[in-house]
């Protein structure tokens, strides 16, 4: 992962351009990796090669990448049931993730976590969570821990609009504010609390909830990775320098259903709405258009990245398909440390 705290002033303009180009390619690669990863999850799932449930984050790539690019490797995140993007953006490897999703022994959690429980301690990912809002305490506790241990680590709690209905979010925001903890609550509002529009489940104003606790809150266009990165960078810096928690509302959209099996969505949203987001507010299109129009990259650069990511994902899927399942004796391991 690139060093986000780098002070670019030392570079002359061509070096600066080179660095910006490199970082832009990196972010584009990360977003594309998530997109292709999820497309392959969909494929694996619908061809009955992947067991269980799967919740795709296609459409929300810019939030995961923009936020995680503002973090260091030793910063923490907690994630959600729609967490593949967060996990990849924080630095996980595609092959070990696919292996975990298929329940294989070489997966990140030896096949015992699965899609909704992937954790990767080495990249600071304290875990996806299948309880909506369930990780808010963990993220806040990691921030308390960082403060107590005297490190300058920052903790990010990803959650969706659905978690706004869970009480624990407000309990821990209260404590984070009281104790000035280095935690950022990133609310991904993808408009749907499972199969229900969030306005039917969420009264009042979302950022006002955080402001009521005197938590610094911002609302941004979550489809624009540059905006997500710059705002996240500011909030991370605040947290790292002891200025306390913040709340980042990212407006985004989930292209697929609540889970892979949620195909017929007409009863809760229109095809026109979906097509509008896919056409006019797609995070990959927005970012690649910016890169090409600003002259940073040309189409062949993007094609090159695309082909590299495609190869990586194909290899990763094959790695996971070929990987062995856990042995039966694994079932009783790790109940206790």
């Amino acid at each position, binding site marked *: 992962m690139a060093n986000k705290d780098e002070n670019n002033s030392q570079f002359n303009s061509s070096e600066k351009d080179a660095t910006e180009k490199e970082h832009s390619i990196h972010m584009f690669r990360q977003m594309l990796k998530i997109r292709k990863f999820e497309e392959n999850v969909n494929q694996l799932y619908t061809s009955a090669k992947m067991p269980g449930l799967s919740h795709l984050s296609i459409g929300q790539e810019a939030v995961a990448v923009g936020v995680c690019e503002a973090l260091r490797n030793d910063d923490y995140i907690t994630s959600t049931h729609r967490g593949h993007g967060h996990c990849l953006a924080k630095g996980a490897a595609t092959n070990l993730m696919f292996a975990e999703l298929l329940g294989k022994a070489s997966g990140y959690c030896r096949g015992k976590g699965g899609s909704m429980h992937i954790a990767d301690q080495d990249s600071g990912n304290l875990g996806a969570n299948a309880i909506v809002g369930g990780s808010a305490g963990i993220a*806040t506790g990691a921030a308390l821990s960082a403060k107590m241990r005297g490190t300058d680590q920052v903790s990010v709690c990803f959650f969706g609009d659905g978690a706004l209905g869970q009480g624990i979010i407000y309990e821990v925001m209260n*404590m984070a504010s009281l104790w000035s903890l280095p935690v950022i609550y990133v609310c991904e509002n993808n408009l749907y609390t499972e199969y229900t529009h969030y306005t039917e489940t969420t009264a009042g104003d979302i950022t006002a909830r955080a402001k009521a606790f005197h938590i610094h809150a911002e609302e941004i266009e979550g489809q624009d990775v540059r905006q997500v990165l710059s705002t996240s960078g500011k909030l991370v810096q605040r947290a790292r320098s002891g200025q306390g928690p913040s709340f980042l509302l990212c407006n985004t959209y989930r292209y697929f259903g609540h889970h892979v099996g949620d195909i017929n969505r007409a009863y809760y949203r229109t095809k026109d709405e979906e097509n509008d987001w896919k056409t006019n507010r797609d995070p990959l299109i927005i970012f690649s258009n910016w890169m090409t129009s600003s002259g940073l990259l040309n189409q062949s650069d993007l094609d090159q990245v695309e082909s590299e990511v495609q190869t990586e994902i194909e290899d990763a899927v094959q790695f996971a398909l070929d990987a062995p399942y856990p042995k039966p004796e694994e079932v009783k391991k790790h109940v206790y440390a």
Partner: protein
Amino acid sequence: MSMPESSERIITFSQAVNEALAEEMRREKTVFIIGEDVAEAGTPFKVLSGLVEEFGTERVLDSPISESGFTGIGVGAAMTGMRPVVDIMFGDFMTITMDQIVNQAAKIHYMSGGKLKVPMVVRTNLGASRRSGAQHSQSLHVWLSHIPGLKVVLPSTPYDAKGLLKTAIRDDNPVVIFEDKMMFQDKGNVPEDDYTIPFGVADIKKEGTDITLIGTSSMVQIALEAADLLAEKDISAEVIDPRTVMPLDKKTLIESAIKTSRVIVIDEGYDSYGVTAEIASVIAEGAFYHLEAPVKRIGAMDVPIPFSPVLEDLTVPNAGMVVEMAKTLCAAA
């Protein structure tokens, strides 16, 4: 009893808990306490009095009344290098922490394939008889005992309270300790030394030959009282305290059952589906051909705990109930 005879020092159960926490906090900088009114107030039971003066508000954190929230914060802190002791003021409030303990703390080590650990202690209490009504009197330890990944500890003496708590703090797993709030002023010998008591090792509190009385927490005292009364009737009762119900020292319990051939299990959880049921089943399986009578259970009456003292007292196991049941079992031989 496993108590060393060298150092005689009589202190209360409450002081023993306090001493265990202070010693561990001195020994290990990552240990901290979080909960409602734990700092200057030292909890309503005053068990933590003096700790904030020594360790400061950075390590003895008064929280809002948010059991779910600060238990979750404990989980996150434990996953990232700290050893929190989460204080849940009444055992009844464990209901509010359930997602954080059952779905998060208990499962994180397993779900992460052994990568993440949650070395967290939850200190709470159990037991009726304080005229506190149905929401401040329950003994809900079996809820946690049912969940793989958790350890559940039930100290019955000041000596055990100190040694078991120290073991809990040093354990790399989530451990829930239930102390009976009626025992805080009980006195006993507690060495000043640093000692720990291993989990999963039952303590034979009194040896006997005719019947085994297995008691947990304050029910150990009820069993000992019953044993004294039974001795007057020439019935020799053995009293065993499992000390931890998860892990459970099945071997010691079964061996005693084989020796005496009769068993009563006494625990203050509700009568049905309780710790008593599990222990009775363990003995039925392990000592079946040696039993002279069915394994019997005594728990709290299956009713919400009533407020009126005359009613509340009917719901809690007492020595008289144990004696009557023991006499029946022994007469049946």
